[in-house]
Every structure is written in C-alpha cells, then in structure tokens.
C-alpha cells in the first residue's frame, strides 16, 4: 500500500447491505414466535437478539476495515486451518440441535463454525489460485484446489448438515472465472438432468433418450469431415459415453431409492410433484407459499398477516424469512428483496472484475458465488421451486453466526476492493 493512499470503500454494496439487514430485522420482528410483542430491544426475544447481532457486526466491520489489508492474504492459510479445526472440533465439543451437531454452546448463545468456514475457504482458494505457478489446467493443482473446497464441505456433511455443505459448490464460479473448462459445468448439468429425470420418468425411456441423443451427436459429428483440423470421431468413445450415462442413471436412482434417508427423498419428491403432502413434509413449503400469496400486492398489516402471526410457517424467522417479507410487505417487499440481491450480485461481479490482482478477484467471485447460491437455494425453496434445504437467506435470516459470517465475507471483499489501486503483489 502506497503511503497516503486513501481507501475507497464501495458505497453501493454497503448501502445494499444496510438495506437488506434492515429489511431482515423488520421481518424477523414480524415473524418472531411471540404472542405479545415487547420492545424491539428486548434481548430475550429474537428481534432483540438480532439487533444485538447487528451491533456486533457493526464492530466487526470496523475491525475488518481497520486491519492492514495485506493481513488477509498473508494469513489466509492459517485462517483456513483454524476454521477446519473448529469444524472438526464439533465432533468433540459440539452441541446437537435438531439432529445436527453444528453448534458450539457459548453461554446463552451458540456459535456455528460452518458460517465462518465459508470466508476462510474463500480466502484459501483465492490464496492458492493466485500463486504464480498454480494453474487449473494442471491436474495436481486442480486436485489440491478441489481438496481445499471439499474438506470443509465433507466435515459439514458429516454433522450432518448437507444443506450448508451444498454451498461449497459455489466455488465453481470462481474456478470457472479462472479458466476451468465449461465441460465441468456441462457434465454437472447432464448429471443433474439424468438424476432428476430418473426420478420422474421410467428408466427405460431415459436409456432410450441417451442412446438416441448420443447416436445423433455421433452422426452429426461425422458430417464435419471437411474440417480437417478436428480429430476424427471415434465410435468407441461414444459407446463409452453412452454406457457411462446409463450406469450413472442406474446408480443415482439406486442411491436415491436405497441409500438416501426418507426425509431427503421426500423433500425432492414434493418439489417434483410426485408426492402431494401438504400436512406432512410438504407442510413448510405449502404454508410458506400461502403466506406469500396472502401478502398480495402490498402486504397485510401485522394483525392480518395470519400465517406469520399464527406461526404457520415453521422456521419462519430463520430459513423461511422470505415468506414473512412476502406476507407483511407483499409483492413490493419480495420484488425489492430479489432486486436488491440481484444488484448486490451484479455489483460484486463488477467489483471482482475490476480487481487488479488475482487473489482479490478469486475471493470476489467466491463471495459472489456463495451469496448467489444462498439466494438461489433459499428463495427457490421458500417460493416452492426447489426442495427444502435448510440454509439461511444472507443478512436477513435470524441468527448471529450467519449474519456475522456473511458480514465478514462481504466486508473483507469491500476492504480488498477499497485498496485495489494500491494493493499489489
């Protein structure tokens, strides 16, 4: 950092952050599981606590912005190791809530290390990738980077909290930006499509579809004989591809039907429309959609927001906070929230693109990817487009660890971005 350089903090992202946190607090207040409202500063109720967490975040932000910018890159590895240790430590000291050992008891509060592992992993990925001799084209480097991402994801899956582990797929966007072939995405998409269609359609049809499309691609590729520079298509490669697809379809459907637990299976089945169960497992999503629909254009006053006030949507102040926004502030509230998230993501991508060094850019994309995945999975679930996956909506869902984790994630990047002109390798 050059002496006398003034950091330029990105005002737009800070404003969006403030707006989201504010809307979040109001929604936590309306969705609070209380019969009688008390003062919003009542520390015994969720809204009082959330207010307290926001205060802590304010301090965190000051600290993050005050620390020398070089610190983060330099200690990225150490932060990652500490974070991995804290995840591993859960298996010894963790407290079990709702069947998952994801929390450390901390007096009257709990601390969820998986929320902090996100930024730690983002730092570690950025640090590793920004080394001069590292390339994603190199298989060994790719394996290492995959390991860095997979390790916390694995530990979190074991808690078990597969929803939070899912978020680590967000790093795909950072890797893709750094040159990872789109083939990976294509493969991933094919895998997903095969997996879901195997659940909905008879497996025989899928095999037929695989064979037809692969034969079609083979026949099409034979026609481009004039393009001499391209390798000649080899039949055995297509046969292998077809067999792999078929084997994969069989194995995933076997895993789904025999290895997955019922609760996971049901969540997927409900979204696929295979099971209509508004009273059982589908209850959450159904009630959540009713709450959103009840909001109409401009929402209902708290007294008439019966879904929210009656506690019909389970976990409404945490994972289902978006449904409270929907009922209390209507389409105005939901569309504002969605647009704010879109703006934040656009802003983060623009900010990442304007970084001069790779570390900041990779970290930026990591942040954007993580926020995007939370946004996608959480709201997708609440509005009934995706299966129930228990992850919070950033800045808005009630929860100290979450709010702090997301705040650190964002403001670390704002700090890096503020120093982009002077910050150099």
């Amino acid at each position, binding site marked *: 950092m050059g002496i006398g350089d003034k950091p330029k903090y990105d005002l737009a992202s800070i404003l969006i952050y403030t707006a989201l946190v504010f809307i979040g607090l109001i929604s936590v207040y309306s969705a609070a599981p209380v019969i009688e409202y008390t003062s919003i500063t009542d520390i015994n109720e969720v809204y009082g606590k959330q207010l307290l967490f926001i205060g802590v975040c304010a301090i965190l932000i000051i600290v993050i912005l005050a620390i020398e910018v070089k610190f983060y890159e330099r200690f990225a590895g150490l932060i990652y190791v500490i974070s991995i240790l804290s995840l591993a430590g859960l298996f010894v000291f963790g407290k079990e809530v709702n069947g998952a050992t994801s929390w450390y008891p901390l007096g009257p509060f709990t601390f969820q290390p998986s929320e902090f592992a996100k930024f730690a992993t983002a730092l570690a990925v950025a640090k590793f990738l920004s080394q001069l001799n590292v390339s994603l084209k190199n298989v060994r480097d790719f394996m290492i980077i995959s390991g860095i991402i997979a390790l916390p994801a694995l530990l979190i899956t074991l808690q078990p909290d597969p929803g939070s582990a899912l978020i680590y797929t967000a790093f795909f966007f950072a890797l893709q930006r750094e040159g990872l072939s789109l083939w990976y995405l294509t493969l991933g998409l094919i895998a997903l499509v095969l997996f879901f269609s195997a659940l909905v359609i008879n497996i025989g049809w899928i095999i037929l579809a695989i064979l037809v499309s692969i034969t079609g691609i083979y026949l099409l590729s034979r026609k481009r004989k004039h393009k001499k520079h391209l390798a000649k298509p080899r039949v055995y490669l297509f046969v292998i591809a077809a067999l792999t697809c078929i084997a994969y379809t069989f194995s995933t459907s076997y895993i789904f039907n025999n290895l997955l637990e019922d609760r996971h299976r049901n969540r997927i089945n409900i979204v696929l429309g295979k099971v209509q169960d508004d009273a059982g497992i589908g209850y959450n999503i159904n009630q959540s959609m009713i709450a*959103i629909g009840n909001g109409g254009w401009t929402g209902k006053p708290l*007294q008439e927001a*019966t879904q929210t*006030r*009656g506690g019909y949507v389970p976990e409404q102040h945490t994972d289902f906070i978006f449904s409270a926004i929907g009922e209390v502030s209507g389409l105005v509230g939901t569309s504002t929230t*969605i647009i704010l998230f879109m703006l934040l993501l656009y802003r983060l991508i623009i900010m990442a693109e304007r970084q001069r060094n790779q570390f900041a850019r990779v970290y930026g*994309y990591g942040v954007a990817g993580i926020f995007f995945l939370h946004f996608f999975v959480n709201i997708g679930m609440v509005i009934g487009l995706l299966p129930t996956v228990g992850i919070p909506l950033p800045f808005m869902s009630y929860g100290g660890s979450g709010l702090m984790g997301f705040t650190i994630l964002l403001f670390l990047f704002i700090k890096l971005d503020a120093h982009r002109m002077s910050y150099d390798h």
Partner: protein
Amino acid sequence: MKKLLLLSIVTLVGITFLGRVIYLQVILSDTLQMEAENNAITTIYDYPERGFIYDRNGKLMVANQVAYDVMVIPRETGDVDINKLAELLKIHESRLEKKLKDARTWSAVQASVVVPQLTQIEYAPLQEQLRKFPGFYIQRRSLRKYMVDHSASVLGYIREVNQNSIKNDDYYVQGDLAGKSGIELQYEEELRGVKGYKKYTRDHYGRAIESYKNGSSDKAPIAGTDLTITLDKELQEYAEKLMINKRGGVVAIEPQTGEILTLVTAPNYDPSLLMGRDRSKNINAILRDTVRLPDVNRVLQGQYAPGSPFKVINALVALQEGVVTPQEHFSCNNGYNYGGKKPLGCHSHASPLAMNRGIAESCNAYFAQVYRRIIENEKDPAKGMDIWHDHVTSFGLGDFLGYDLPVGQPGRIPDGDYYTSRYRYKWYAPATISNAIGQGEVAVTPIQLANMTAAIANRGYFYRPHIIKEINGTPIDILKYTEKNYTTIEAKHFKPVVEGMNEVYRSGTAKYVQIPGIEICGKTGTVENFTKVNGERKQLTDHSVFIAFAPKDDPKIAVAVFIENGYWGSRYAAKIASLLIEKHLKGAITRTDLENYLLTHSLEYEYVKKLSKAPFKVNEAIDQGLITLEKEKKLRKLVDSLQPNTLY
C-alpha cells in the same frame, strides 16, 4: 464468456424468482388468501335463541331450555380414571374409552363432545364432580323445550345439520341445529334467527390469539322469530288423547279461515324423546318401528280410499251438472246391479229414496245411479269422466293442497285418460262405478278430506289450510292463505246436500253421536281395505271414517277423522269427531259415554291380525277392543317380538 456466466445465471434466476412471486402474489393471491383464511381465522358463532311456538290462544307449546355438553380437550386430561368417569357420566367404560380415543384422533388441542345434551337435572350432580377431571368441562347450549308431550309429527324436531345441508346452504356450519321435520322445518328460517359470529385469528395449534381486524367484521346475532300457529293446544291435546291405541288421523279446520285447529296422526310420540342424551336411541327406535310406523304422518301422507264421505261430492257434482234433482227417487234392492260380476251391495233401509235419505242412509245404489248419470251425460265416458274430475279436484282433492307443512301426498282423482290408458278395450261408466262410493281408484289424504268438508261448510269455497297464524305477533298476510278458492259447484246446490248431511246426524248413520244443542252435518264412511299376507290378498276390517262440520248454519269447525280398521264410521270416527266438535264449541264434554268408550277401547287387536300369521276374522260385529290389563300385556309382547332388532 468467462466473465458472463455468473452474471447471466444471476439474471436468469432473478427474473424467474420475480415471475414466481408475481404469480404467487398477484395471480394465485385470491386462492392463497382464502387458504390463509381457512388456516388462521376461526369463527366462533353466537347462536340466537330459537323462536318460541305458541298456539292460537297464546299458549306456549315449544320453548327453549339450556342443555349441557360434556366436552374434553384430550391434551389436557393427563391419565383419566376411566372407571370413575364412566360412572359419573353414566356411560359404559368401553364407550367412554372409544369417545376419548376418537376425540384425540380428531384433535388433541380442540374440544370434542363426550356426552351431548345433558338436561339440567342430569347436569347438576356433574358440575362439582367434573372438576376432578382436568381437560373436561361443560358447555352450555340451547335446546328445545316442549311444553306438550304429543304432536311431535306436526311440531317437528331439530337436530344437527348433516353434510348435505351444509353443502346446500351456506348458512349452516358443522354442529348447527336445524329443523328436521314439521313446523321446525317449515319455518326454520323464521325460527332460527341469524347467528352472529366473532372472528379470531388462531395459531397453528388452533388456539385463538386475538380478535380479527379488532372485531370490525364481527356480527351480533339476530334472535329467532316467535310463531303463533293455528293449532288449539287443548283441542289438539284432547284429540291426541282420544287417538291413543288407534291408528289414523284427525284434522280439524276452521272453515272461515282455513286455519288448522287440530292435526293429529296416530300413533304419535313425545317430541321430548328426540332430545337429551337418549335422542339417538329414540330416533332410531321411531324410525325403525316398521310395525307401527310412527314416523309416517298419516294425516298428510296417508292416501286412503275416502269411502262414503265421497258420496256428498258426487251428489254436488250431479246437482251442478243438472243430471238429478234433490227430489228424484231411486230404488235400492239391497244393492245395485250395474252389470258386473256381482251387484254393488247395500244394507237394508227404506226404498226408494231421494237425495236427503240417500246421504243419510249412505245408499250405495242411489249414488251408483247418480254417478252413472254424471259420466254418461256425455257421449264419450272419458269426457264425462273429465268433467267429473274437474269438479272433484276443485275441492282440493288429488292435489298437494299447498298447506305449510313439509310433507304430503297428492292422493288420486282419476280422469278420462287414466282409464283410457289403463283399459285396453273401450270402457264405460260401470267400469268406474267404485268411484261413486269413494272406493276404487279414488284416494285422498285425511287433510284433503277435512278441507273438502270445510268447502262444503262454506257452501262452495275454501281457504287453503295452513298452520301459521302470526309471525312475531303480526297476523300473516299471505295471499295464498287469505284468498278464497272457489269450487266449481254453485252455492245453491249445497243446500240439499247439507240437509242430507244433517240428517245423517239426526236420523241417519251417525244418530248415536248426537250432542245436545249442536247441529252437526256429517257423513260416515266404512272403507273396505286389503293387505297382502304372504303374497295373498286379504281383506282387513274396514276403516272407520267420518267428516263433519258444525254448527250447521254458521260453521266454526270442519273435521275429518280416519281410523284404520275401526270398522263402521260411527263406531270410532264419528264419536271422535263429535267429541272434538263439542269440545271446540262448548269447551266441555257432555257425552262422557262416548269419551269413555274411546278411552277404554284399543284397536291394537285389529292391527295385530295381519302380523300374527294366524287366521283371523274381519269386521267382527262386537268390538273386541275393550282394554284389559292381560290383553294389553299380550299385545305388547307380540308387537315387540315382531319389531326388527334394534339393539345397539
């Protein structure tokens, strides 16, 4: 490309989400708002008191009483001492256990009824004791209180609405009480009032949290309307008393207004049976009584051959058509040979006779010849039949009559087409000769018979019979019930017929039921009837019928009495009719001998005949119905043994 992937995915997802929330909050909004309301708004109804029912003299017949339901909230009970509680509630342990299990299955947090509709007396000892059982409590509700122990079929009863009524009428919700029969059903909307409600939001446990919209959408109940009906409670009571041990019906109508003074069907039952904790048992017992059929309203639904009272109609039609004069004499030779297999029989009396004696002696031969003239007045008997049909139906016969009670039957008055479609060959008047004497194809209900009598009393018109007199103290002003319905018979033709009916009473078939000081006009009837016993057509003892009005020149009451298997008209029906007339006009009974006969005679022995499988005699000259203790016991036992098994 590298830079655009996340950007485009974010855009795609964002737009999808916006589309989805617009879909949910704009397009699907109404549906989802309704679901939210179903979910979260609980409506607690505030039931108004049901209207009272008074008789024509302002005497209370139906009021309300408080009843008590024993309720349970399963979640709050803890371990229940089934034995003690069953003893306290006076129900069987296994039944109590089942009730509690059902309640828990339905909802653990919402109240269910354990024992419904306890009366004040049953409730008193529970009040203190029940406190020892947490989760159980008592809920008040308003029930009917009947001030009479008869007339169930006309008053009707109320009961919880079924799914069908809920589906067909938005007003009703689960657990509402509504009229099921009689006046309670007919005037349900007036009697019930409009229930009020308070809306509360409730949480997902079903607990009420707060008043919805600060109570701005709540509604106060509107009380039910009191009704005054046309029945005379005392006359009704007296008729019910006289009808004990008989089957059939009594209808009395005030001719000047069409108001129904008495409407009795027998056997009847105490309306209070259909309330309280034994109601379902009692309802079942009544509905399943296929021997006595107490559920059938014989006055409104029973379609009987009218018998001889129908002769006066034929006399009137004949006079109107000009085919006979009152003075013309017809001969009777113990019957009339119309060309059938055997002659139409008649009993011994002076012959030849004119109209007055024809009616007084109820001469079959006289009316067969008069009837033939009516039908044969036209070349085509079908046309003659049609003319006869139109005259007869102008008395309200063969029609539902339009009275304000919920059940009825039209009866049957055949016309030309009826026979043309029935007989494959050309038919002539003699083929329908039974109509002359009220047998054969003619069928009427007792209320039609009474209305016909009222029309004769009025000399040519009637008011539609009705049961409603005042609504909330205001006399009804319904055109249907205040307009005169004219018969097709001119007033001048009634004089000879009325004279004949008076002779019935003074020196004819009903001379034994005379009441000092009252000029009655009447007509007896002895109706042949048949039944099938093991697929074999068997004759039963004749029905005893009597129609009458009085006083002759200023009729205040028209009565029709129909007694199944009472044999000849004056044996039962005429006695009952004349006692009712005396009661109505004088307020006291002088013919206590008649009253005594009716109270000490039972016709159950007749009703048992067709069931007993043993050979039996019909139309026994001496009434076997004198009630003795031993006989009663035997009869009861027999009837009970014939009932389908109603144990449950």
